């Protein structure tokens, strides 16, 4: 890869991955969306509005924080946390919903729909819909509604209708199916804000571009604070939007290693996990070709993770491509290891991470001690852990 990285191609392919695998009724809307996105991507007025919203509404730039105590304790690399947990609504998801909502407004759409797993994307969508005065419907698997009730309440407070999806495994993939069914029915007035770098083209590229502010800021902040580029980037990967947001601006910096951390659930060897890049195989789901968790007949199998946001059988197609080309590496962390990461960051640095981000923290705990004290790891702290208090308390047998 000596040439500058330039993916996807114009039909949304990252090598064999990505693409536009949708029913005919959705072809026109995704083509219209792509045209609008290409147009506004280079529109100074749009960019200025987006930048202003990110600064004054979201609170960007988010800090790059040197976790000195934790680094010292682990005895290896210097760990820097990219503090996406400090964004308005508490996670990186709003970087994308702000951008897509501005597009929706310019395209004249009056109704917003979204899918959500942990509820962070749902909250971020309900938030921007409230601000723009748009109708908002959020699809959420019934299992996730039960385990993330706090976020359900937040979405309702913000004026969104939350639809509990009872089909299939009742988790994120089923919420996505239901949102696609809504979209195909209401294409004329409805904008579908997908929350991760999956779905049909242009979503994987568009969501990446809106999330790439994470990596652009982190790169500049690292140069300013440490005087050089990092050695390694670490981020959790469900659909993979925070990871691609951090990785993308570094892809042509060949010295920077990139590591995506998937959810191993009870352990990849048990089959109860959400790690398609580590243990799945390529297939087509939700509009794109990517690594999937499926059986020999091509039926999607149920996933498992303590974190609702990583509980998804697919992964963004660009991650599939980065894996195959070797530019990024993908590892996995079990539920129990993630809990160790959760507690370590909470007690060492006074920062309570989301369970999703805790997977990245747990891998950092393994990696940092193997590196030297003058090396640098940037870890994406993609969200804060407030939403997970119930899950944590229940897991540890505490009644709130």
């Amino acid at each position, binding site marked *: 890869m000596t040439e500058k990285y330039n993916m996807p191609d114009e*039909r949304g392919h990252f090598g064999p991955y990505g*693409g*536009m*695998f*949708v*029913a*005919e*009724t959705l*072809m*026109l*809307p995704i083509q219209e969306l792509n045209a609008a996105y290409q147009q506004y991507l280079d529109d100074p007025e749009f960019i200025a509005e987006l930048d202003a919203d990110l600064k004054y509404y979201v609170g960007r730039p988010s800090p790059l924080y040197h976790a000195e105590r934790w680094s010292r304790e682990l005895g290896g690399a210097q760990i820097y946390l990219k503090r996406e947990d400090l964004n308005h609504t508490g996670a990186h998801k709003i970087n994308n919903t702000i951008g897509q909502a501005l597009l929706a407004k310019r395209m004249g759409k009056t109704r917003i729909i979204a899918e959500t797993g942990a509820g962070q994307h749902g909250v971020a969508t309900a938030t921007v819909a409230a601000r723009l005065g748009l109708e908002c419907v959020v699809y959420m698997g019934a299992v996730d509604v039960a385990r993330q009730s706090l976020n359900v309440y937040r979405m309702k407070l913000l004026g969104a209708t939350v639809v509990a999806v009872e*089909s*299939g495994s009742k988790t994120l*993939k*089923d919420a996505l*199916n239901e949102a*696609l*069914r809504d979209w*195909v*029915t*209401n*294409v*004329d007035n409805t904008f579908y804000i997908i929350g991760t770098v999956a779905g049909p083209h242009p979503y994987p590229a568009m969501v990446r571009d809106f999330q790439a502010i994470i990596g652009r800021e982190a790169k500049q902040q690292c140069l300013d604070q440490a005087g050089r580029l990092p050695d390694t980037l670490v981020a959790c990967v469900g659909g993979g939007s925070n990871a691609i947001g951090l990785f993308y601006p570094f892809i042509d910096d060949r010295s920077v290693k990139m590591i995506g951390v998937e959810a191993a659930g009870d352990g990849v060897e048990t089959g109860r996990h959400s790690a398609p890049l580590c243990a799945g195989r*390529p*297939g*087509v*789901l*939700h*509009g794109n*070709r990517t690594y*999937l968790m*499926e059986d*020999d*007949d*091509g*039926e*999607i*199998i149920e996933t498992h993770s303590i974190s609702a946001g990583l509980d998804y059988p697919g992964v963004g197609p660009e991650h599939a491509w980065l894996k195959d080309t070797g530019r990024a590496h993908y590892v996995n962390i079990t539920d129990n290891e993630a809990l160790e990461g959760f507690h370590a960051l909470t007690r060492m640095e006074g920062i309570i991470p989301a369970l999703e981000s805790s997977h990245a923290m747990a891998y950092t705990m393994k990696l940092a001690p193997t590196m030297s004290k003058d090396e640098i790891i940037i870890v994406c702290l993609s969200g804060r852990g407030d939403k997970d208090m119930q899950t944590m308390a229940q897991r540890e047998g505490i009644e709130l």
Partner: protein
Amino acid sequence: MSRLAATFEALAKSGRKALVPFITAGDPRPDFTLPMMHAMVEAGVDVIELGVPFSDPMADGPVIQRASERALEHKMSLRRTLAIAAEFRKTNQHTPVVLMGYVNPIEAMGYEDFANAAQRADIDGVLTVDLPPEEAEECAALLKARDIDPIFLLAPNSGDERIKKMDAVGSGYLYYVSLKGVTGAGHLNTADVETKLKQIRANTRLPIAIGFGVKDAQTAKAVADLGDGAVIGSALISKIEANLDDPERAKKEIVELLAAMRQAMDS
């Protein structure tokens, strides 16, 4: 000439329209499907669309979703669906069978292995909901090389260029989705369908089967008058769902509904 082309040509010559039922293979049980196919032929259908169950049927409404779930509970799969079709062909050489489903089970088998298996089962057409022409080149070429028709969908928002594209890559017939929505949804607007059919006819000479929103004899006749065939799915599967403890009764009710449609369409 493919069995589908021959069927539509013969119908056109006699001034009749195709009655095209859709059922999900293996719903409610694997042993129900083969006798149901034969019974539908006796009721006067011209083409059978056999649904391949998939875990994530994104374009389907609740009725066909639940049909998929029931079939998957009995471990129905693409391979077993092909086996049922092959069995059907042993005693019926004239009724075209079209597989309808999603692309992932085909990807899992591999495009070439699938094309070979479909040829061995004497499948006539393959309609893959989430494989638009942009992504279908490889699979469609493999099917065409084996005289299997790749069948594509047209939607209310498909413009002239797309209709021409479907005409170029598709064969057998084109399936016009009469409304924006999922299967089994909404209310058929025949005036809209009539307007759209004029645009479609101007861009293709392939037969047009019309589906989504066909519920009874009246709607079947209405769309058949406008196109070359009526596709009926959710209304049949509702009969299965209403009689899960009595599949024979489901079969009887389906046959009655199809016979009524046949009569209305031929009158």
